[in-house]
């Protein structure tokens, strides 16, 4: 029932905007910054941020935001990040996570990586709902956001073979399959890559490639031309 309380806390529109702002930053956010971003007074923002921390949607800590330390640096400021734990409510009660874990465990033991990837690719194609492949990074961002990946553009600083041209890639802050991916990484990350390849389509202007980093989705989406040698 705690999860219901957490979700109910988001019903307040100001609180929800504060939550969405902090979640979208992917880093620690102070009270002043959050208040400014949402356009409310600092005290009101502080009240709502603490409430969000209380129900477990945010985690709070304290940090000296000025970078100074010692006497005169001021009190440490309270900062907030989104909690890593996931919150879900299903009415009536459903338990797809246990089903997913059991199916993944069986697929892992049976070595069904190829079969799972083929199914994921077909599902991705079906989800795209169009014969044409995804048209560009912006369209890819929209498709990924709709599926909960929390995409963001990042400058590719060290793209090999590309001279001078400023290129961007799409990285994803959230893995929609996080829990089961942590338990069976090669199997589930491979499934996720195949799903995204299907979603983006074959031989289009953008493509998905595996490029894992700690704390993020294992896939990056980039312009297909970037890596044609």
């Amino acid at each position, binding site marked *: 029932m705690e999860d219901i309380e957490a979700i109910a806390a988001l019903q307040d529109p100001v609180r929800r905007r504060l939550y969405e702002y902090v979640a979208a930053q992917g880093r620690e956010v102070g009270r002043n910054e959050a208040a400014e971003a949402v356009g409310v007074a600092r005290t009101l923002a502080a009240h709502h941020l603490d409430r969000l921390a209380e129900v477990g949607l945010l985690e709070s800590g304290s940090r000296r935001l000025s970078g100074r330390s010692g006497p005169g640096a001021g009190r440490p400021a309270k900062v907030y990040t989104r909690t890593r734990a996931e919150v879900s409510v299903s009415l009536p009660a459903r338990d797809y996570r246990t089903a997913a874990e059991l199916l993944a465990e069986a697929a892992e033991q*049976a070595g069904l*990586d190829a079969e799972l990837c083929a199914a994921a690719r077909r599902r991705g194609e079906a989800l795209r709902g169009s014969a044409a492949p995804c048209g560009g990074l912006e369209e890819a961002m929209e498709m990924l956001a709709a599926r909960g990946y929390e995409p963001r553009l990042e400058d590719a600083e060290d793209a090999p073979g590309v001279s001078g041209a400023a290129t961007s890639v799409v990285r994803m802050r959230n893995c929609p399959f996080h829990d089961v991916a942590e338990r069976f*990484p*090669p199997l589930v*990350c491979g499934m996720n890559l195949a799903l995204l390849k299907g979603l983006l389509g074959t031989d289009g202007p953008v493509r998905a490639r595996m490029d*894992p*980093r700690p*704390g993020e989705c*294992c896939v990056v989406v980039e312009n297909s031309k970037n890596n044609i040698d």
Partner: protein
Amino acid sequence: MTASVHAAHLAHLNVATLRHPLDDPRTAQFVEMLGPVNASADAAPGFVWRLVEEGAADATGLRPAGDDVIVTLSVWETKEALWDFTYRSGHLEAMQRRREWFERHVEAHLVLWWVPAGHLPTVDEALERLADLRAHGPSPRAFTFASSYTAAEAVQHLQAAPPNASRSA
């Protein structure tokens, strides 16, 4: 040598049965990835050591667990460091394609155990831990990512480094 909890490192052994020999064209893309992936391991945060065959760049020529079985033996400062390298680096791409190159293992193929910092495990010791895991299931002596134990829980099983232990493979 007294092994304090803070001075423990995590040892890791992985065995993989090749579907085709390393010089077979069907294994070529795996062999291509070996250099870059090993280099990224060496540069990874928390990396301590990995087994390398004398005069070679890796341990793929050593076949202590069978003619077609390649082994990876390494030591890391923490479980998180090993996890991030294994599953959150270019290594994951190789793992995701494992069925192209390796047979499916019915028994455990990966084992983790704590060692005193500074101790570099021998291949025999590593294979003993794998046998322990296979025979008795996960325990503080030998475990997996999904069933892990802390160094504190394993403190009585820390194998002290013998004096003047040889550090070569």
